[in-house]
């Protein structure tokens, strides 16, 4: 008997990917750093570290603290600036067998527009993520993702500058993420990345000093997974564009939670620090999961969580 392999391919706007697994921005370098530990042909795409208009030295150390079920980080967008980046980094990406998605950060609409346009003009870059939600940049990092009007403005401006897929990365550090998601879609986003890290803090009780040089940081890892799953579920109810679910995904079961909550793709970040073979393993196990359930494609499980009486009733009806 010839078994048909289920398809794991997905689409984010115009961007077609063979696998639904993205590597989170700032967690995976350009991919090259991990090539000796896992087969990068088996990942969907690497989201590159965010780049800004001007070089940034980033936050003081310590920048990382391990916490129960997670990690706090405050890197502070250290990057060489778009000019250096385009000249020295981007040319390398075209020769790689994995796709890379550029990530743009900024402090004004102009900043985003400038970097987005220049990055998107390069063939090596498959799509653009707008990081409007970095929690580790003093006072301004999350301004855009916390305000529906500013979100709309930055997305609309960048939409006018490129036809490439625009993924907008949203913050969990807001009262109502759905309002921001709605505006991002209306302004022309092709997909939404949900969520960025959750703001947090740790204090050394021996020295009484904060354990991060930046005092506060962004919490990632399994500690934030339920927060992220809820955010994906809520956002999926108000938008029609695909969602990249992210936040503490370590196993295939974690990935499935996000897909069932409404994510089309998933992004892996902190788990790569525990074991860089996780993305490859998840792809293989997702295929097995679909095969075992006789499903032809990954899309068949997206948003299929049985939630509420109405859905549960329908489900029972289907079974009957």
């Amino acid at each position, binding site marked *: 008997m010839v078994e048909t392999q289920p398809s794991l391919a997905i689409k984010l706007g115009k961007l077609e990917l063979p696998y639904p697994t993205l590597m989170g921005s*700032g*967690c*995976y*370098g350009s991919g*090259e*750093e*991990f*090539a*000796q*530990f*896992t*087969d*990068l042909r088996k990942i969907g795409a690497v989201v590159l*570290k965010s780049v800004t208009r*001007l*070089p*940034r*030295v*980033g936050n003081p*150390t*310590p*920048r*990382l*603290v*391990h916490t129960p*079920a997670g*990690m706090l*980080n405050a*890197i502070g967008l*250290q*990057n*060489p*600036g778009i000019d*250096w*980046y385009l*000249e*020295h980094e981007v040319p390398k990406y075209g020769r*790689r*067998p994995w796709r890379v998605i550029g990530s743009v950060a900024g402090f004004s609409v102009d900043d985003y527009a400038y970097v987005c346009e220049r990055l998107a003009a390069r063939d090596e870059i498959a799509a653009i993520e707008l990081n409007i939600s970095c929690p580790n940049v003093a006072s301004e990092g999350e301004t855009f993702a916390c305000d529906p009007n500013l979100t709309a403005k930055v997305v609309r401006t960048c939409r006018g500058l490129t036809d490439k897929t625009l993924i907008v990365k949203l913050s969990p550090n807001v009262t109502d993420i759905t309002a921001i998601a709605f505006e991002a879609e209306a302004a022309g986003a092709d997909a939404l990345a949900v969520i960025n890290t959750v703001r947090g803090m740790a204090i050394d009780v021996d020295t009484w000093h904060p354990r991060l040089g930046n005092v506060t940081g962004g919490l990632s890892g399994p500690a934030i997974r339920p927060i992220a799953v809820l955010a994906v579920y809520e956002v999926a109810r108000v938008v029609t564009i695909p969602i990249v679910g992210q936040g503490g995904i*370590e196993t295939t079961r974690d990935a499935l939670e996000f897909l069932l909550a409404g994510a089309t793709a998933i992004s892996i970040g*902190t788990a*790569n*620090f*525990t*074991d*860089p*073979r996780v993305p490859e393993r998840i792809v293989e196990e997702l295929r097995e999961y679909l095969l075992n359930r006789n499903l032809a494609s990954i899309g068949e499980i997206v948003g299929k969580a049985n939630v509420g009486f109405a859905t549960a009733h329908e489900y029972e009806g289907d079974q009957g």
Partner: protein
Amino acid sequence: MTTLDLPSRVHATLVTDRRELAPGVVLLELDAPELAAATLPGQFVMAIPPSGEAAATALGVYEAEMRRASLLFFITGKRTRELAELHVGERLDVLGPLGNGFDLSGSPRHVAIVAGGVGIASVLLPAQALIRAGARVQLFYGARTAALLVEAQRFADAGCEVALSTDDGTAGYHGYVTDLLERSRKHDVVLACGPSPMLRAVARVAAQIGVRAQLSLEETFACGVGGCWGCVVPIVRTSAQAPSFPPASEGGSDVVNARICKEGPVFWNDELRW
């Protein structure tokens, strides 16, 4: 290797020996022929927690010969405790060897190695290599208390002259290990590994006595491979490094943040701006 090669630096090792050298100090010996063959003095591995429930842990490779590699570490929390509880015959996956080790070129004749606490874990390989190359190696080894001065005899057996110090005076010199270095004044180069305050003191003493020092820096790693920029230290960017090193600021400062896991963990004292 090219990036298209299949993973080559993931090692599924087996624990062949496990010894508690002192309360909370553990030596894990691994059957890891490829790792042992590839490791250079001062390199480290990321040990993947068997439970998968915590981040990987960076550990210096203590010994590497034939099929054996060993890791010496202090139990400091959940992650190291899990590794310490491994039994002989159990599997431990490690990534590595990682980072740049000590620069042993230049045929130094007199070498001082300064180790503080768990820093001893990264200096046996360079000591052995230097002695093999004909250098005279003096180990200055300090710890809080006598019980934590583990493996001193191992270094003596390898041919090092060993000078000990403890914070509480229970063994060797009563005081800082860097005091011993300061009095020695006869070395071509200093290699050091230990807690940051000790390394800063080594850098200061080395500058005073007019000798260069290589310092193996400690920092919390997330990825250990240069992907996250979580473990940086300011260094002076030399013209040889530019443009592989990105500029730090618009003004084109020559001081840049280097990754301890990737560009280090070993740096020369005179390139650091910490």
